[in-house]
């Protein structure tokens, strides 16, 4: 079987925007460097420089996109060789193909908007320049991740976005919670990276190359056991980066970062890198059915877990984070299905990028007006005072719950349909997830914008400035129509086909399938239930104790408790034990030996009594021993 046979081969050497695709990475990288090294002098224009670099990157991406569109479908995979990175292991180059360019557009476009939004959001922060430096760094790393034509380059970007994420989560590092969250994010991601790294080693040991082109063309020749191993290892990496079970625990804590960060990194782009990895490595997964099955299971489990967590959170950002987990779960599910799911996975990824960024930025706008209050129980009735925020948020909300004709309706339901076709159990669970999504998102909206005003006395909510609202408006437009644009007529699927392949039979969009209707019904029930509990009823200022199920969800399904019991506490014990062993055991042995020699010296010198007769005795005995030994040896 040649799973990738229909994937067009790479054409190297392109001119134009593709030829200088590296500029996409270079612009924000230069921005980051300039802002970090610039010192206080650049405080004044730092944020503008940051925005400029992001926009410049977007311009290159857009030009490259149109250039790609200009080629025949079979010639749309363009390689841009750069240089020999690690001689003997990897040459670094860029791969501009429909998949990567889609990501580039998402990253640079949403990224630019969020940059702009941050000008307003971070205007009071003394370290705004540094914030933009980190954002630029993130954009550069993320672009490297998606543009690299080999696994090493991908890994460099992969860890680069991890670094940016670490820096940005911990941006307000003087808060211990932020510092801890940043560290946690990095370490949990490292666990994932560990898997990815081993996966890369296995790839290299198997194929002696890490270039996508080499690996994918030779993947058919590898045993399915090897491919399964590689697939599962890559999945571990994807789980870490995309906050999938069981490496999901960091994402909720990551909300300690400034909201634009949550929007860009922990909703729209970085956390979807896992999906990219799985889709990109399609030829490997397609040779490893077991790995694909595990991918889909992980996806479904996470989509449910994220949704359940989302139902119980009072912190608006954490509720959205749960939702992000859940939505990525859908994407992973789709990515695990194979070529039939890839287009939906990526399409949902893109639309999610828009509506979730929209939601997060909206939440940021709310927080901005509410003195950085995140507890939704202290919101309520905000639709009047923040009309633009409300409307854009509402669009994002409708998009995510799959309200007909909005983006999520096309992409998420597309995933559910494909999943249903692939495996009914997975499909029904995905449907259930959609219902829960309807509930928790409605709960969020009702608690925030409807009902009674439960504000703190000091809160004076107001609409955000234009620099923040315009990005919201633009994103909400995407949330509104992007889904329809991508899905109707299989536009996106055909576009992606040269990069990831496509199912033999293209699906036709049908709004009235049984699955679709059931989904809609479940979503409606969820919305209604939420209205019943949070829209129509009084929202208590302090969260009621709730059933054990509520507690279960509030405590992130005991993920942290589990980690603590399984890893942290034994780890702490192990550390203490190791330190003790090192000091007393190994070093104790070394010092003990020294002490033993010193001690025996102290004892032996007592033999030197100072009495000449005892010295004479030692000579006498020595003479006897010497002569005796001589006799013995001589007569042997």
């Amino acid at each position: 079987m040649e799973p990738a046979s229909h994937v067009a081969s790479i054409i190297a050497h392109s001119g134009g925007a593709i030829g200088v695709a590296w500029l996409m990475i270079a612009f924000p990288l230069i921005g980051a460097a300039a802002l970090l090294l610039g010192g206080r002098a650049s405080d004044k224009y730092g944020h503008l420089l940051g925005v400029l670099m992001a926009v410049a990157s977007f311009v290159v991406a857009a030009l490259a996109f149109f250039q790609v569109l200009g080629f025949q479908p079979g010639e749309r995979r363009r390689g841009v060789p750069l240089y020999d990175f690690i001689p003997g292991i990897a040459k670094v180059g860029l791969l501009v193909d429909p998949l990567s360019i889609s990501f580039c557009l998402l990253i640079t476009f949403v990224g630019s908007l969020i940059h702009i939004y941050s000008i307003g959001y971070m205007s009071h922060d003394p370290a705004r320049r540094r914030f933009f430096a980190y954002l630029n760094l993130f954009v550069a790393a993320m672009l490297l991740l998606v543009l690299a034509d080999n696994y090493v380059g991908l890994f460099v970007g992969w860890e680069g976005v991890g670094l940016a994420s670490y820096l940005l989560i911990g941006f307000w590092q003087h808060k211990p919670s932020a510092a801890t969250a940043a560290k946690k994010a990095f370490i949990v991601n490292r666990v994932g990276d560990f898997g990815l790294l081993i996966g890369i080693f296995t790839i290299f040991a198997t194929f002696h190359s890490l270039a996508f082109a080499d690996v994918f063309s030779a993947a058919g020749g590898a045993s399915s056991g090897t491919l399964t191993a590689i697939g599962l290892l890559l999945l571990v990496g994807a789980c870490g980066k995309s906050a999938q079970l069981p490496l999901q625990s960091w994402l909720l804590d990551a909300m300690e970062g400034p909201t634009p960060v949550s929007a860009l990194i922990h909703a729209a782009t970085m956390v979807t890198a896992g999906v990219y990895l799985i889709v990109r490595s399609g030829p490997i997964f397609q040779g490893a059915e077991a790995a694909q099955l595990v991918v889909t299971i992980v996806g479904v489990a996470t989509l449910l877990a994220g949704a359940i967590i989302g139902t119980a959170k009072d912190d608006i950002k954490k509720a959205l984070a749960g939702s992000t987990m859940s939505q990525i779960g859908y994407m992973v599910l789709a990515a695990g299905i194979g070529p039939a799911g890839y287009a939906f996975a990526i399409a949902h990824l893109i639309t999610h990028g828009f509506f979730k960024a929209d939601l997060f930025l909206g939440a940021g706008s709310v927080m901005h007006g509410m003195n950085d209050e995140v507890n939704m129980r202290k919101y309520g009735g905000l639709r009047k005072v923040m009309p633009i925020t409300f409307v854009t948020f509402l669009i994002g909300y409708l998009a995510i719950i799959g309200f007909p004709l909005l983006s999520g309706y096309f992409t998420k339901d597309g995933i559910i349909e494909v999943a249903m076709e692939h495996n009914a159990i997975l499909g029904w669970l995905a449907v259930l997830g959609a219902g829960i999504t309807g509930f928790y998102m409605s709960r969020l909206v009702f608690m925030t914008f409807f009902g009674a005003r439960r504000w703190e006395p000091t809160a004076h909510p107001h609409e955000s400035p234009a620099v923040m609202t315009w990005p919201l408006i633009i994103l909400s437009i995407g949330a509104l129509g992007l889904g329809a644009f991508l899905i109707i007529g299989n536009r996106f699927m055909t576009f992606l086909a040269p990069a990831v392949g496509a199912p033999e039979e293209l699906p036709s969009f049908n709004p009235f399938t049984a699955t679709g209707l059931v989904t809609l019904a479940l979503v409606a029930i969820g919305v209604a239930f939420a209205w019943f509990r949070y829209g129509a009823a009084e929202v208590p200022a302090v969260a009621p104790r709730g059933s054990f199920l509520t507690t279960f969800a509030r405590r992130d399904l005991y993920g942290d408790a589990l980690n603590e019991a399984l890893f942290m506490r034994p780890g702490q014990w192990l550390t203490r034990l190791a330190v003790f062993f090192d000091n007393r055991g190994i070093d104790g042995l070394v010092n003990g030996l020294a002490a033993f020699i010193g001690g025996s010296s102290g004892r032996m010198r007592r033999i030197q009594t100072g009495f000449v007769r005892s010295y004479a005795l030692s000579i006498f005995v020595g003479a006897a021993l010497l002569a005796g030994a001589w006799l013995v040896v001589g007569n042997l």
Partner: protein
Amino acid sequence: MTTHYLVLSALLFAIGGVGVLVRRNAIVVFMCVELMLNACNLAFVTFARQNGNLDGQVIAFFVMIVAAAEVVIGLAIIVTIFRTRRSASVDDASLLKH
């Protein structure tokens, strides 16, 4: 029967050696060393007899002279320390130790 002389010589040597070990008075200890030297002399002479050459007997003379020189030095040292310490016991001179 030269063996007897050799046994005697060995006995004398042993007595001298043990004397050095058990006596405290420096003079006596020193005399015991002289006894050991003389035991050597006896052995030399005996072996000279046994081997049938005169070397041993000549050696004995040398040894006597050396022993005499040793006495001079020895007594000088012992007397000095006796004058200082008012004691000729070798056990008293035990400041240098460990």
